[in-house]
């Protein structure tokens, strides 16, 4: 009653605390979408020179030569960077999703209390490590490891497959995917754990009452109930992986090349932007091309989010309470 009165009086007199709250929250709610729109506008605006110069060819050519030997205009194509971004992101999800799910299930369902706290703490520490530190560790620890124990072994056993062909330096898409996986695991597993914890106990109890084992309970009651949330976790991790810059730049080899082999160097959209942005002065088309890469990246993550959302909506109705 009292609150209703307060609301009425605030409507009468205007600037009461409650309406101030409305205004403040309203501003906050509007600000973020506005920033997003402005961001897209600015990036789009910046990429106009490149769009005018290359049109759709930008998306389908793979040459990258900002200063051609003949002194002509830059010859730029985004395909290798797009390819590298997609491959490293998919690789990172292949590595990270099963592990994240395992970590989340363990923490939410199986771990005794005394183990859960340190386990939570350590996994979340992974998210607190700055990306450039991952890059350094990647270059000085992961790259030699991959070269000696992973790339060389795969190359000698499965080298007949195109994806495991070529020189095994440890610098390339496979290592980039690996380091991305380590970086996104805390994000994915944290969301997944929350979702799994949110599954009502009654579901589990019902399952157990029917004589199900722990694993059967997880399989038949917990995971189906939580699947929309699990996919949301994967989408979040994917967004993080596709935009990661520093760590990837340090281990991927930064070469504008499209090759099927996962061992060989490549580049991703963020790594190209990070590498080339500092030296881009006074060259409209070149700068525009970097902006357009940003636009493409924006589009790619938008698309991924959209797909994730569609999947969630498809699955969602089955789990509505």
């Amino acid at each position, binding site marked *: 009653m009292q609150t209703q009165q307060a609301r009425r009086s605030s409507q009468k007199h205007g600037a009461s605390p409650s309406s101030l709250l409305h205004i403040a929250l309203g501003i906050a709610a509007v600000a973020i979408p506005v920033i997003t729109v402005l961001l897209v506008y600015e990036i789009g605006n910046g990429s106009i020179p490149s769009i005018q110069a290359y049109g759709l060819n930008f998306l389908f050519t793979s*040459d*990258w*030569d*900002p*200063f*051609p*030997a*003949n*002194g002509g205009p830059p010859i730029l194509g985004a395909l290798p960077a797009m390819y590298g971004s997609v491959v490293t992101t998919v690789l990172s999800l292949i590595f990270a999703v099963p592990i994240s799910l395992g970590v989340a299930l363990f923490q939410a369902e199986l771990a005794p*209390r*005394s183990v859960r*706290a*340190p386990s*939570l*703490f*350590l996994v*979340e520490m992974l998210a607190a490590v700055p990306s450039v530190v991952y890059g350094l560790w990647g*270059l*000085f620890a992961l*790259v*030699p490891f991959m*070269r000696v124990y992973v790339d060389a072994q795969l190359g000698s056993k499965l080298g007949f497959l195109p994806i495991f062909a*070529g*020189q095994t*330096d*440890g*610098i390339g898409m496979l290592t980039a995917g690996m380091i991305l996986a380590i970086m996104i695991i805390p994000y994915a597993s*944290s969301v997944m*754990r*929350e979702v799994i914890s949110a599954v009502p106990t009654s579901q589990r109890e019902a399952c157990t009452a029917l004589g199900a084992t722990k694993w059967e309970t997880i399989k038949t009651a917990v995971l189906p109930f939580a699947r929309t949330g699990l996919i949301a976790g994967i989408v979040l991790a994917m967004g993080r992986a596709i935009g990661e810059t520093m760590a990837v*730049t*340090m281990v991927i*080899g*930064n*070469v*504008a*090349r499209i090759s099927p082999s996962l061992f*060989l*160097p490549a*580049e991703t959209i963020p*790594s190209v932007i*990070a*590498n*080339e942005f*500092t*030296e*881009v*002065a*006074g060259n409209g088309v070149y700068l525009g091309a970097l902006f357009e890469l940003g636009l493409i990246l924006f589009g790619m993550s938008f698309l991924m989010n959209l797909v994730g959302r569609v999947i969630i909506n498809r699955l969602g109705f089955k789990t509505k309470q």
Partner: protein
Amino acid sequence: MNVCRILMTMSKEPSKQNKTRYIIIAVVIIAIIAGAVAYQSMANSSSSSSASQSQTMMSVSSIMSSTEMTSSSATMMSVSSIMSSATSSPMAGGTMPATLPTVALLGAGATFPAPLIQTWTVQFNQMYSGVTISYNPIGSGGGIQQITRKTVDFGASDAPLSNTQFAAAPGLTLFPETLGGVAITYNLVPFGLANGTVLNFTPNVIVGIYNGTITHWNDPAIAAINPGVTLPINLITAVHRSDGSGTTYAFTNFLSDVNVNWATEVGYATSVKWPVDIAMNANGVGAKGNAGVAGTVAQTPGAIGYVDLIYAVQNHLGVGAVLNAAGNYVSPTLQTILWAAQNATGTPNPSDLRLHIVNAQGAQSYPIATYTYMLTYKDMSLNPDLTQQKAQVLAYFFWWEIHGGQQYSTGLDYVPLPANVVAADEQMLLTLNYQGTQLLPSSLMTG
């Protein structure tokens, strides 16, 4: 968020459990630290052979002496004698004003000279406590862009400005403030090459490696110029810069100068399209920054790369000797780079101080080197941020850089400017003005 949740659940629980949980977390943290220490000591013991080798690796000076090809008397030259031979002009300490007004100046640009410029700003502040100069190493391109837009007081660039870039910034001028060499560095110790072995490279071999036609270390072209060295059969990984860079500019400028195919197919710029990246069966790798290239070479057996001299020295990597214009294989040292600078620049024209010193004449000149430049407006009033007072301080700072400031070069592995370049710089700096009023007194020229 989750940390909060843990903390909240913790605070709700009885204190005994609470305590155990803290203990567990503490134990885990200690275990991590212990694990890290153990891992470290294991890594050390496993690489003890290479560690002992790196002990035999040398200090900067002994690298210089051990890789010097001839003229042992030159090798004995100490750093200070390099200094004195380089800057024969009098130190300007006596002619500099005793005090300067309190101003703050801002510069931005190249990363390559950044350690030296930052040392200068500190030293200048100690001499004139009122003068605060900050320098942001954002890259040469960024430096050119910012000085063109007049958002900084001075810029710095490794590559000389093109005519187009000058046209975009009317009134802009430049002068070289230091120079550095680019070393060819390689990692072959894991493949059995003795530590400290100096490999010889001809320009054509370097071109072959970077355009993907020479793919193995035991290629006849490399073997022919390295008699007596057992070269491994392994593949070459050609490492280059992935970011735009003055180092790449100097390196590709050299390759264009000595190889006509490279000049027409690749050319020279702060970043180029490396043929080795897309050549079949060859392996090119890009790395960000000098440190990135040095790190990648150090981590990759069979890799070759090009870095500013100091990075090759600091990382204990092999440093190659390069065939120069006179037909000698010369290793990069401060002295051989200085010789190149002295021989290549002749009498520079003070009105256009863009200098090319790759492939310089002279028996012991190291062929891959580059000047790096300060950018400023000749009429400093064109820059709206500069008052006449600030402009004068900036002009004195420039003057001090090429005189007193040069003594800090060798300690940071930069080469002091040769006397002929200092003289040309002096001429240029005396033309700096503020709406026609000369900023530096001509009496500064005592030599």
